[in-house]
């Protein structure tokens, strides 16, 4: 066993340990991203299903300039009263292509096609994790 051998062995072991640490970090971030992706999808799907349950007539119009916004923490608990503690922001827009003339608040016309868009953003920042859309119509699904 020479000093050179020990040196090379130490280098190999050091490289391995560095790789493990690096992979640990990579795995952690990837797992977190996956988790965020899962949560974002769940929150978006929940929002879409809630709107479908509310229905064509009773879902309030929410233009892109003033979307309905909800906040959720890592455990998907609502944080609308404390947005600073939130990790996810869910923005919902509902836009009708035809409305009842003069209605206030805006009512969709009977033959309206209502476009619902749900966008889930990671906080802080503005990374869009998920965006889903659907249509609402009279007697639709």
């Amino acid at each position: 066993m020479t000093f050179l051998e020990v040196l090379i062995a130490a280098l190999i072991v050091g490289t391995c340990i560095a790789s493990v640490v690096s992979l640990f970090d990579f795995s952690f971030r990837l797992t977190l991203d996956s988790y965020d992706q899962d949560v974002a999808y769940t929150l978006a799907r929940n929002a879409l299903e809630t709107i479908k349950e509310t229905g064509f007539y009773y879902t309030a119009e929410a233009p892109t300039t003033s979307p309905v916004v909800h906040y959720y923490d890592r455990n998907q608990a609502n944080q609308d009263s404390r947005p600073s503690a939130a990790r996810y922001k869910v923005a919902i827009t509902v836009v009708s292509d035809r409305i009842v003339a003069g209605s206030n608040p805006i009512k969709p016309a009977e033959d309206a096609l209502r476009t619902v868009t749900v966008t889930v953003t990671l906080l802080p920042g503005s990374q869009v994790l998920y965006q889903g859309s659907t249509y609402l119509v009279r007697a639709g699904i």
Partner: protein
Amino acid sequence: MRHLDRQIRRQRGGVLISALAFMVVISLLLAGIGTLCVSYYGRARTDSDYAAALSLAEAGVNFEFRKISLDETTADQAGASNPPGVLYNFGGGTFRVYCANRDGSTPWKPPSNLYVIATGTLNGATRTIQVSAKGYAPPGNYAIYTLNSISVWHGSAVVVVGDVGTNGQLDFTGHPGIQGSIYFNGPSAGWYGGLDPGGYTELREPRPIQWETVDQKALDLFPASTYPPGGMAYLATNNDNARATPPIVGNSITNSVTLHGPGNYYVTNINLAGNKTIDLDNTGGPINLWVGPSGGTGTCRFRGGTAALTASQNPSNVCHIYVATKSGIDLAGNQRIDAAIYAYNKDSLGNEYGYVVNSGNPTINGQILANQVDINGNITVNYVPDLIKPTSFGYYGFDNSWVEINGVNQ
């Protein structure tokens, strides 16, 4: 000493081999963990896309519902493309949609019940659903419905309990009491001159409602193949006028008479004044009073119309007054009329006509359908459901089934 040297020589490189073995083990672990993480992440993405594809497919179905509700002739059909249907971009992905008949054949032939088949695609994830759909009757419980005309309602004493609908125009000189909504159906419908009197609940539907004409109603009951020459012409000579009390002679009513049900009575003239009335004895069955001939201009001054049984007492014995003439019907007297009044017809060129006016103040328990309805005074119309039904659908929508094709929800 030589033995010791040999032993030391054998131990040389051992630490390197151990380190390399360690590296191999760690590399295998790294590869495994890396693969696991990446696959987990990939699966999360795929699950998300897979679910979003379903949303897109559902959006495609709703899109098609709206499209055929506006105009069923513009339905997206399967066509010759493979895969079938029409492709639309939406929400960052696409959906492909088409209509099919319930037996699976294409193209869909409106207005029959149908399937809407839609495929949503996002980032390579694809899901297809098949949803059953059908046409729905136009909304509205119409006490009065007018078609392509300008109907003028005078004063504020008119009372309508139910909805008012029109494919044409309404002109109110006062503020009639309407205990329901006003439906403007189709692009031509609205207030005459754009003058909205205000104070009413207005609803607008994109399509005019289609109704059978009196001639068609007569032909439905008495088809030419079975009852030549069929329809109103058949009724002119084959009716129950002789069963009336007293019998109706010369297709003319100028004195009080009782019509007995079941029966189809045909007249070309009704001219009643004073206490002379037509009574409807529908205890034995429904009564239809037909006023002809089609396009005629005879007098029809109607009084009476009180039925022995109201529609609520016996819905199957309801009474109808069908007016096929251009001169229409004048509702005189103040009696209660338990009947639907149907005055809508077309000439050979397709021009629509049919007229209802009141010179008395009757209370009508039923419905009024006419090309034009001009009313005034203290007339009251109370809606009775299901006496008159349109021939067109108001819109299309979900019926009763939703299945995923080639998917987990099939």
